[in-house]
């Protein structure tokens, strides 16, 4: 079937079909989150602090961290916990390497998701979950210090100081608000945690530890992110 991970959007008769598209899938909603990053300054609220935070985040061109992700969902008997390493490169994307409870490395670049093998070759995940790619896209934009589109979709509240801050993203639009309750980011010089809460009762908490500037990337990492060696 069609490649969903090309970042393009096939099959678009709808727009011309003219029918007010009454329904659209959830993952389409997440496109907005992906789009979420423009027009700073359009928001009055704490724009000074927000700008400082984004400037600081955007100052690190590549970052490594160890992550722990914990997920609660009404369908789950107990929280799902996974651990691994994250490499984030501004303008390129991220490598999400899970070590526990299974081993897997995902390359999230732009709107694409790819599974990375032992040699660093990225195989596009077809028919994979687009939502994941899209949230990663949003984070990529935020961490790159370019949040224009985000502010169209979310009210952003910045709290604290540049040394210890929290950003609360609440959907501005009813449609998204029906699905997504909020996204919180917190950190200091680096992003330290992400919390995604869905209306269905799911909540995903990601904590970062040992966050640092990445330094030189290994050839394998460069290959996985599609960078020149």
């Amino acid at each position, binding site marked *: *079937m069609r490649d969903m991970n090309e970042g393009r959007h096939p099959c*678009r008769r709808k727009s011309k079909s003219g029918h007010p598209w*009454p329904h659209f899938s959830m*993952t389409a909603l997440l496109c907005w989150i992906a789009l979420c990053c423009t027009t700073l300054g359009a928001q009055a609220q704490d724009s000074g602090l927000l700008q400082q935070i984004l400037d600081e985040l955007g100052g690190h061109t590549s970052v490594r961290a160890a992550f722990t*992700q914990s997920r609660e969902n009404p369908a789950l*008997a107990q929280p799902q916990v*996974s651990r691994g390493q994250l490499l984030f490169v501004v303008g390129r994307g991220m490598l999400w390497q899970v070590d526990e409870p299974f081993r897997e490395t995902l390359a*999230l670049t732009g709107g694409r998701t790819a599974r990375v093998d032992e040699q660093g070759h990225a195989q596009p995940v077809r*028919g994979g979950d687009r939502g994941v790619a899209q949230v990663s896209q949003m984070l990529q934009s935020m961490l790159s210090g370019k949040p224009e589109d985000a502010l169209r979709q979310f009210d952003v509240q910045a709290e604290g100081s540049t040394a210890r801050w929290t950003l609360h993203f609440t959907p501005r639009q009813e449609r998204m608000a029906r699905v997504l309750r909020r996204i919180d980011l917190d950190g200091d010089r680096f992003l330290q945690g992400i919390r995604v809460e869905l209306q269905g009762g799911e909540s995903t908490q*990601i904590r970062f530890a040992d966050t640092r500037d990445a330094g030189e990337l290994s050839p394998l990492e460069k290959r996985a992110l599609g960078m020149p060696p």
Partner: protein
Amino acid sequence: MSRLTPSLRAALFSVFALLVTGLGAWLLFGRGTSPIQTDLLAMLPATERHPLAEAAVERLAHANGDRMVLLVEHANDATAKDAARELGKRLAADPAFAAVTAELPPFDLDQLIAPYLTHRFHLLTDADRATLTQTGYDAEQALKRRLNEPFLAGIGVKLQDDPFGWLQHWLDQQPWSRSPLLPEDDLLTAHRDDRTYVMVIATLRGSSYDDQVQRAALAALARAEQTVKHDHPGIQLLRAGAVFHAAEARAGAERDVHVVGLASTLGIAVLLLWTFRSPRPLLVAFLSTAIGVICALTATVLLFGQAYLLTLVFGAALLGEAVDYSIQYLCARANAGPRWQAMQGVRQVRPALLLALATSLLGYALLGLMPFPALRQMACFAMVGMLAACLSVFWLLPALLTAPATKPLSPMVVRGALALQTLAGRIGSGRRSLLAIALLLLVAAPGWWRLGHDDDIHLLISPPAELSRQEARIRDIAGIGNGSQFYLVHGDDAEQVLQREEALETHLQSLVQNGQLESWTGVAGMLPSAQRQQENHAALAPLFASRAQLEAQLQQAGLRADVATAYLDAWPGQPLTLAAWLALPVSTPFRYLWMDQGKDGIGSIVLPQGQDDVAVLRAAAEGLPGVELVDKPASISTLFGRYREYASVWLLAAFVLVALVFVWRYGRAAPRVMAPPLLGIGLTLAALGYLGQPLTLFHWMALMLVLGVGANYAVFLHEGEPHAAHLPGATYAGVLLSAVTALLSFGLLALSSMPALQHFGITLLLGIGFTALLVPAARSAREYVSV
């Protein structure tokens, strides 16, 4: 017939004309809907072998027919959205629109997903099916991965309904998940190059081709646009929709009819007044022409049910040819002076008029042989019009022109004609004529050498550049394919169609992977064939075969026990049927892709996007039974090309026919009578070559008319001269009068906005001009003296 007195015959003819006029008026204005067809596509010929293909072309052309698709554009996001909201409100408040969509209705995700739950074990993406059928598929591992996906897992389909994510993956591939236009602030919005585009869709209260609906909607849009642009400076409005094309086509045709009709009427009036120096001949000539045009229009609408714009414009130009018959009669009257007897006059002009009518009817009948609705209609229009005009000369005009003319033809006109005639006669006599012909050929040859040809569809349909630009922009932003090429998949039943479409999808997928195609839209992607659904189900069956084991795995992965039980209880579910799919609200915008045409069979339309090279698209359909690429513009161009070639042969055939008639009538003088039209055609072709106009089907059609008209002139001159021997130059003056009226009407077609009519006009302008100048050579100088 001969027992009827002229006045009784005239009375009967008048009654007939009045009846036809009444019928015509009722057909045109009395039935509420106008029979004038503004849909340019309607006049295109059928080109596709498969009847379904024609139906599909029709359906695609009209799928978006009765709507306006508008994009409001501004650099500032909030301004664009406010403007779109205001535009939506203003349009919605206007009675011209049945519905307007700017702000989206409430949205319920669960409502979208719920109908799919019973079918979830029959719907798999190709990737998931491939993974599931691999040996050593590890369900527990797959679950773990899914539950621990980064950032979120249970969005869209609830985790308990779809723990493996299969249904979610499948839904992600559905067309509605992938539009570049996304709801923002309850508006369908796209962002491109730092500009915001917001879509507003307005549904008309009727057909785009309905005159009243069209005018009301366009006026409403213009009002709303003005207000919105005033309130939100800098707003740009992009528009698409059949209604704009129809309006442009109508405006263009109306302008053409006005320019051609008005200018030729005025020109002819001035010319007739000048020549006959009395208002009566003018009125009589116009009456005869009007009868011709009214009969033609009435007959056309009666026979075809509607009249194309092309026919109307052509009809306006036909005035100039229909007036010829009355001119001949009026000239005879003017030349007879006080000796004039109306019936005697009819007998005098009858042979020439009948011969001229026969050649005209012959020419138009050939035109009508083309299996091309627009051309047939034009031929029908012309034949009825010429016949009625000619009959009016025989039956009506004698009663109106019983008195002799008070003044002879304007001496200035006659003297001018005589001068031309003498010159042409001198050049066209003896050895000098051969020399003249050789010289003409020498001049013409380089022009012929430069002739090319052009068969493009733009000859008939050339939307205004600005409208095309806006539509292209909308397609680009909204991500819609160009719509002129598509695949038609057909089969004996729905299942076969879907299976064949799936075979096509495999080919298209490899194009996508090679970067040769962006995507496609088809039914099989939303409704897999029963066979494919069976395969999907079979791929899952081994997992569900051991319920206890899967239940353990689900719980092991972390799902609650009751959730696992409920999920397993849902197995095996139902396949998604055609009827069920058609009933889904979500399928509404895509139903037009599914074609169930009864006896013509069942089929589906697959729309490719992101590839304009037809060869690549065609190759993808090769070797697939029941799949063909339909490329209507290319089919039309091929057809134009084929008929252009036929037309040249037909011209030759018509020439031979006319020549035979002339040989029968004129014997040895026939070559001389035939030479002017033939040379006229030759010189016209050369002139077109020099002008750099590639030949089209429409040039050839016009050349057929040139032959007909040219032969008429030769006949008029040849037949008329003996009756006006006492007035040298008078007969040729009559022919010149005919020619100038024809030039005034047909020649003005060269100003038409439609390339086809332009070509038609310019060819006639050149052809009739040349022929009229050459025609005196139809009688040698010696003959003029001897008669």
